[in-house]
């Protein structure tokens, strides 16, 4: 072999770069279980079947956003009731915790949906007027979320 040390260095770099997920998983003691979602106890039925919601929930929210914001259509019929197309008022009435529901999978996949650029998760505005403490807590939560994500 010619230029031995350069070739060996190159091979080592190649091996490290291409097997890095394996080492990361060993170092992190990767847990192969899927994220656990905290499901609502008082409500049994969602607006669509579970499998559809798992894969397509973003489509529904996207459609709602367009209808509400751009066409001023705010209600839709679900079975025999009329429901508002609203993330915070309808979805999060049952799935009331962003941290225990939305974030579980989104963090697992490194997804950072821009819902929360405008919306505020209900848990974070329970009191009508936010106190200084609330704001601090809110900031801390956001920081924690960020650090979990990163």
């Amino acid at each position: 072999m010619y230029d031995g040390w350069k070739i060996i260095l190159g091979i080592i770099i190649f091996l490290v770069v291409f097997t890095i997920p394996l080492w990361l998983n060993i170092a992190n003691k990767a847990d192969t279980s899927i994220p656990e979602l905290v499901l609502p106890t008082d409500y049994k039925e969602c607006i669509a079947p579970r499998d559809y919601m798992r894969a397509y929930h973003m489509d529904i929210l996207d459609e709602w956003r367009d209808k509400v914001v751009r066409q001023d259509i705010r209600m839709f019929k679900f079975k025999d009731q009329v429901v508002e197309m609203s993330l915070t008022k309808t979805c999060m009435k049952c799935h009331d915790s962003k941290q225990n529901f939305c974030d579980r999978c989104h963090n697992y996949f490194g997804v950072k949906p821009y819902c929360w650029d405008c919306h505020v998760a209900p848990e974070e505005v329970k009191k009508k007027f936010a106190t200084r403490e609330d704001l601090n807590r809110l900031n801390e939560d956001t920081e924690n979320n960020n650090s979990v994500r990163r």
Partner: protein
Amino acid sequence: MGLLFSIFTFIILLAIAFIGAYVEGLHYLFGIVLPYIAFAVFIIGIVVRIIKWAQSPVPFRITTTCGQQRSLDFIKQNKIDNPFTGLQTFIRMFFEIILFRSLFRNTKAGIKENKLTYGANKWLWLFSIVFHYSFLIIVLRHFRFFTEPVPSFVPFIQEIDGFFQIGLPIIYLTTIGITVGLLYLLARRIFDNQVRYISLASDYLPLFLILSIAITGILMRHFFKVDLTPVKQLTLSILSFQPILPADVNPIFYIHLFFVCTLLIYFPMSKLVHMPGIFLSPTRNLANNNRAKRHINPWNSDFKMHYHTYEEYEDEFREVMRDVGLPLEKEEKNVD
């Protein structure tokens, strides 16, 4: 011919992918066994390839030069295009690899007013750099399926890649980049007569493979949305050596995975080895110091080369030469 052959091969691969995806009994083979085999073949294959290359002697520097070589002090040397030291060569290699500089010099011959002319042709460079970087970023984005927790660079890349927030899920720029890049590279081989003439099946097949990986990925993200939880469970469990086969993985994912595995297996034995090969291209990675330094041909020392001198030649054929009356340098009297 090459095109038809690789289309035929691709159709067979597609059929295998569908069988693997829709026959439930084969999921273990296609979801767990094949990825391990593919990964091992990829890693070992490339290392073997590199070692094989490294065994070829490099008797002297065969640098292609694109600038003034180091000469007298008052003549300015082009340090990147005609490197003299190791560092300068490193810089040339670095820019070659990240910017494809030699491809940027690509020209196209044509006939203009009855004269042969060479014009700039940057399209190949443009689309190939778009394709390569898109591919790299897409691979890096996939780290969200490879590790848990997701590495911090992934959301960062996603944010930049999805900067325009078009559609939901956001259409990434690299999704468009890889598709457009691959389609250009394919169209160039199919519609450019000169390039089609020199294209072989092994030129088309990698394009088909990567294109089908991209298309299945796009289908899973934007059209037939896939529940990702079992998918990540599968990939993460494979990459942490505790394989689990979740029951509800979408068949499209198996097709995607099959093509990825095929690509990994095919990689070390196809033209795609230019990935490690670019580092070992002798016209790029050697300093142009032929005149300043003596490079001894390695064959001379390695094989203890025996030179057959004229003296020995004459000793061997003396009688025959004398019989036909050829002049001899050394007459030996007692030969008869």
